[in-house]
């Protein structure tokens, strides 16, 4: 009797464990938009990157703390300041069975440089040399310290020459061959992408057998799918849904700081904004904490420097500006505008930016500055701010490589005026010098000092109103394990398991 009971229990346990195993084989993730293309060198958009990082791999990658760690490259070494040698991982196979070699690295880097959309990432590289099957050398015209950060960007992922050439224009649409922990299976346009575990993966194999990445454009519906168990992870919950889901049993909210900065840019060539005192005054006039609390409902933090805190080179000692209308009035009087002045602020039809503009208008009215708000269509907005037709504009920047160079050079170097990114037309020879030096300097400590000084100078010069760094919230079912948010938003899911 006792024996048979034991058998029954054992059988039940076996059956149950099998059931839970079977149920745990699929991970369903929801994001807000469809991927555009699964070609890494196609479009540089977030929804695509979120799928691609599961399929493809880069030479190096970021760990949780944004350190550069080996991926397809096992090790690397600067032979000269202009020359970087990679030792590649051996025994890695593409999903079509081809072996991964140095030729693929050369082909992929050249493909990046030929791409209309992502060539800027590897502009610094002038030549790629295949030394042997597993050694590759990258040459740069000038030393470029953040090159490894750029080689960790998902758009520089290594592709397989044969599959790209065979597929032609279909590469990225119906064919996606990488070396990553998941193999592309199916893309139902507008609905979802299905990936399956790469059984021949060189590293730790993916925890789940199948990964489905769904596109659910409505934030509320994404949250509801999580709530009703339709998806296991929902990316980018909206503030309202975050509030509603807080404390709900079975749901874990995972908030993380993104690498993005929002700012109000001045036209520093246009009087009265060519006067530093006026720009500083406006920085003191705006109640940024109110922007954080009421417009972003907490999903942002006030920024004191142009860099997000997560980026390498961020200077935590810069105090920045704070809300002090009296000081603003004082500075305006000192600049000769005690009787007030009139300015315009531009934004595109982004709801958050329009609200910031309104708050800005009210705050500045307090200190005697009359602000007119103009809302422009996106294309015109970018074009006209690049031409310097504005007084002030609201825009954002993502420091996607998590390095100070990416977050400062395009925005503050005088060679970048207009379209490349410096829409404030800010020029400071010392800052130019520092930003150039930062690109060359390979000693991390010295490099850090360079960027710290650059940030101090830029904040003092105030070509921006330094606004906020945004955060994002992912929602997870509590049975999801092993998830960590990548600050650039393309979360890697190979280590995530579903323990229902």
């Amino acid at each position, binding site marked *: 009797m006792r024996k048979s009971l034991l058998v029954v229990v054992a059988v039940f346990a076996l059956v149950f464990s099998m059931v839970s195993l079977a149920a745990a084989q699929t991970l369903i993730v929801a994001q807000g938009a469809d991927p555009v293309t699964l070609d890494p060198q196609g479009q540089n958009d977030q929804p695509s990157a979120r799928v691609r990082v599961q399929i493809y791999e880069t030479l190096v990658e970021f760990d949780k703390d944004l350190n550069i760690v080996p991926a397809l490259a096992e090790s690397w070494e600067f032979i000269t300041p202009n020359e970087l040698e990679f030792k590649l991982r051996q025994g890695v196979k593409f999903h079509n069975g081809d072996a991964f070699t140095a030729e693929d690295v050369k082909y992929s880097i050249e493909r990046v440089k030929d791409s209309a959309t992502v060539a800027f990432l590897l502009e610094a590289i002038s030549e790629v040399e295949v030394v042997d099957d597993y050694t590759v050398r990258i040459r740069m015209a000038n030393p470029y310290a953040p090159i490894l950060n750029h080689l960790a960007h998902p758009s520089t992922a290594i592709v397989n020459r044969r599959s790209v050439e065979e597929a032609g224009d279909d590469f990225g649409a119906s064919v996606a061959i990488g070396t990553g922990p998941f193999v592309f299976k199916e893309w139902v346009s507008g*609905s979802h992408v299905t990936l399956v575990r790469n059984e021949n993966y060189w590293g730790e194999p993916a925890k789940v057998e199948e990964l489905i990445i769904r596109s659910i454009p409505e934030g509320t519906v994404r949250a509801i799918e999580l709530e009703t168990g339709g998806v296991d992870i929902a990316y980018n919950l909206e503030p309202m849904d975050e509030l509603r889901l807080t404390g709900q049993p079975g749901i874990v909210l995972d908030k993380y700081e993104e690498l993005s900065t929002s700012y109000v840019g001045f036209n520093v060539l246009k009087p009265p904004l060519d006067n530093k005192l006026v720009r500083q005054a406006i920085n003191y006039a705006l109640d940024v904490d109110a922007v954080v609390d009421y417009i972003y409902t907490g999903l942002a933090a006030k920024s004191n420097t142009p860099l997000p805190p997560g980026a390498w080179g961020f200077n935590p000692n810069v105090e920045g500006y704070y809300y002090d209308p009296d000081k603003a009035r004082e500075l305006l009087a000192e600049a000769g505008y005690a009787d007030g002045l009139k300015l315009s602020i531009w934004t595109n039809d982004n709801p958050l930016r329009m609200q910031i503009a309104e708050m800005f208008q009210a705050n500045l009215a307090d200190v005697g500055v009359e602000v007119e708000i103009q809302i422009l269509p996106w294309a015109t907005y970018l074009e006209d701010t690049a031409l310097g037709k504005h007084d002030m504009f609201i825009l954002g920047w993502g420091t996607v490589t998590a390095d100070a160079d990416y977050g400062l050079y395009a925005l503050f170097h005088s060679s970048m005026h207009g379209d490349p990114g410096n829409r404030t037309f800010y020029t400071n020879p010392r800052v130019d010098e520092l930003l150039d030096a930062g690109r060359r300097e390979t000693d991390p400590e010295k490099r850090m000092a360079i960027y710290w000084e650059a940030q101090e100078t830029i904040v003092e010069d105030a070509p921006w109103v330094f606004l906020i760094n945004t955060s994002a919230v992912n929602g997870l079912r509590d049975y999801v394990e092993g998830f960590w948010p990548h600050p650039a938003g393309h979360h890697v899911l190979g280590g995530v398991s579903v323990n229902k």
Partner: protein
Amino acid sequence: MSGYIIRRLLLVIPVLIGISIFVFLIMHLTPGDPARLMLGESAPADQLEALREELGLNDPLPVQYFNWLKKAVRLDFGRSLRSKKVVTAEIMERLPATAELAVLAVAISVIVGIPVGILSASKPNSLLDNVAMLGALAGVGMPAFWQGIMFILIFSVWLGWFPSSGRMGGLEYYILPALTLGTRSMASIARMTRSSMLEVLQQDFIRTATAKGLARFKVVFVHALRNALIPVVTMIGLQFGGLMAGAVLTETIFAWPGIGRLVVEAINNKDFPVVQGTIMTFAIMYALINLIVDVLYAFLDPRLRARYN
């Protein structure tokens, strides 16, 4: 009868040509150089020029149009500027999702709308009529995005009967979006049926039919309904055409992979080949649906049939 259908079919051709000219011109009337859009902001001038030449953008407009049309008649709209996907394949992938939803929505709206309209008309100003028409008014007035979210809240979150979004297989995924999409048509059809029925029921031949002792049921359903249906059929046709093209809100709320979302995304990104392909598809479908409606008229209205026989 066949003469009538052929005549109608031939009339579709000039309509499609007109639309094709319009659709072609979209690319040339909106600001922005397509070559620049494809290659991005920082592309060098010689590369831009080479692409312009390759795309034939340097040819005179009429030449460009005929080159485009030659391909378009073979349903070749090229590849998307962003995803490089073949436009026709992309449309064929998305169209079934939209068509299924539209057919279901129309079916629901006809199955519910017409009987409600008839019942209302047969007892005008009764309690039943008032309740039905109040419901129809609400149905016409309710915005799809609000109704969709409410349906999800009630039927997915509270009751847990249906999944809240997606088209991941299984009939249960169709119920909420089809109901949401069909509500406005259902309400419009009910209102149209009622007013059309009321008008017909006032007419002499109905009085005659009643006077000669026919059962009320037969008077209403055989004599009146058939006459009252003509404007209703027009309406159903229009609704169906609209649902095939205009389900963007419903598709967005329910994450439905339909063609409405495809075209809106393409417009936002100035992805001309996709915009041109989808708009042409909408035009062809509209024309076909109208053709079917016209043929249905002939069935419903012996006078039309007589004219062409």
